[in-house]
C-alpha cells in the first residue's frame, strides 16, 4: 500500500500518561501504528504493556496525552464530544472480554440497541440479519442467561457489526471462554476479515488466537517493539 493512501487507522507518536507525581504512570510512550483497510491485527504483550490503553484510544473511549490518532478520515483530536460520540456509535464496533449484554433484553434486542440509540428504523430486522451472520438466527429470542458464553460473545459481535462499522475493536474477546468456544469466536472473526473485509484490531494474550490475525504487533513498556506479518490464510496451498 502506498504510504499516502488513507489507512483505516493511523496512530502517530501517541503517549498516554495516567496520574501525576509519584502516581504517574506512562501507559504509552510513543506508539506508531498503521492499520490498512481490511487488515486483521493482533496486539500482544505482557500485562501493563499498554495493549488495552492503545485499543481504548483508537476507539475514542479516551484521549491521548500527546500525538495523533486518525480513524478513517477523522483526526480524533479535532472532533468535539458530539462527533466523537457519533464516531464511536457509527464507525467503531467494540467487543469486550465480558460480553456486556443487557440481561433483560433478548439477543435480537441487544443487537438492535445501537440502531435504536441512533434513531434508525427497522432496527429489529437489521438485528436479525446481523445475528444470522454470526450463526445465531435460531437464538434471537433468547435472553443472554439462556445462551452459552460463546453464543453471548457472538451476540456481542453481531451488536458490534450491526452499524457496519469501519473498525471492529476486540479486547481479549476469548478471555472468558473455554477453548472450544474461544476457537469458534476466532473462526468467526477470521471469516469476517476474509468475507467482509472487516478491519479488526484485537488485543489478546493467546498465541493460538493471535496466529489467526494477518499481523502481530507486540507492545512492551508502552512501545511497539516488534511486528510480524503472517502469511494470509489460504495463501499457502
Amino acid at each position: 500500500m502506498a504510504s499516502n493512501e488513507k489507512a483505516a487507522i493511523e496512530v502517530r507518536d501517541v503517549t498516554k500518561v495516567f496520574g501525576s507525581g509519584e502516581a504517574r504512570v506512562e501507559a504509552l510512550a510513543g506508539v506508531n501504528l498503521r492499520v490498512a483497510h481490511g487488515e486483521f491485527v493482533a496486539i500482544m504483550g505482557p500485562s501493563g504493556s499498554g495493549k488495552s490503553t492503545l485499543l481504548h484510544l483508537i476507539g475514542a473511549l479516551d484521549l491521548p496525552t500527546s500525538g495523533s490518532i486518525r480513524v478513517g478520515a477523522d483526526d480524533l483530536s479535532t472532533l468535539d464530544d458530539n462527533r466523537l460520540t457519533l464516531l464511536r456509535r457509527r464507525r467503531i464496533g467494540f467487543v469486550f472480554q465480558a460480553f456486556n449484554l443487557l440481561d433483560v433484553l433478548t439477543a435480537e434486542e441487544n443487537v438492535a440497541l445501537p440502531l435504536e440509540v441512533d434513531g434508525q428504523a427497522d432496527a429489529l430486522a437489521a438485528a436479525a440479519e446481523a445475528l444470522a451472520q454470526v450463526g445465531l438466527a435460531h437464538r434471537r429470542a433468547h435472553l443472554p442467561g439462556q445462551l452459552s458464553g460463546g453464543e453471548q460473545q457472538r451476540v456481542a459481535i453481531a451488536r458490534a457489526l450491526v452499524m457496519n462499522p469501519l473498525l471492529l475493536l476486540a479486547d481479549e474477546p476469548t478471555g472468558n471462554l473455554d477453548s472450544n468456544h474461544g476457537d469458534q469466536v476466532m473462526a468467526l472473526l477470521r471469516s469476517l476479515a476474509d468475507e467482509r473485509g472487516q478491519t479488526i484490531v484485537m488485543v489478546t494474550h493467546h498465541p493460538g488466537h493471535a496466529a489467526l490475525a494477518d499481523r502481530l504487533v507486540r507492545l512492551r513498556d508502552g512501545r511497539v517493539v516488534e511486528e510480524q506479518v503472517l502469511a494470509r490464510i489460504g495463501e499457502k496451498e
Partner: protein
Amino acid sequence: MHGYELKAACEEELVPASPLNFGQVYMTLDRLRRDGLVAHEVVTQSERPDKKVYALTPAGHRQLHEWLQTPSPPQTDPRHETALKLVLARRLAGADPLQVVAAERRAAFERLREASQDRTRARKEKPPLATMLFLDLAVLQLEAFLKWLDHCEELLRKEK
C-alpha cells in the same frame, strides 16, 4: 492384514501425512515374527503372487496391551535446543538471549499459523478422530512453546 493393508491403515489413520516405505513395513513385520509377536499364513492367489496375512499372536496381544498401559517416556523434543541456545547466549560475549527469544518466537508463530490453517481446513472436512488428535497436538504444543518463550523473556529481563 497383509503388508500393503497395514501400510495403508497406518497412513490413513495412525500417523496421517507421514508415508511409510514398504521396506520399513516388511522389516518390522519380520522382526515381530522372529520375536513371536506376530504370525502369518500364506494365502495363495491364482492371478497374483501369494501373499502373507499377518495376525498378532497371544504374546503379541499381551505386549500390545502392556505397552498401551505404560506411560510414555518424555519425548525427546528438538525444540529443547532453544533452551540450550538461551543458556549459551547468556554467557557468550556479543550474544543476546532476548534476540534468540525473538527469532524463535517469529518462527514458532509461522509454524502455529500453518498448523492452525491445517486444522481449520481439516475441521471443515470432518476428518477421522485420529487426524484431529494429531492436528490439535501440533497446535497446542506450539502454543505451549510460545508461552514458555514469553516466560523466558520475563526471566531474562528481570536478570538484566
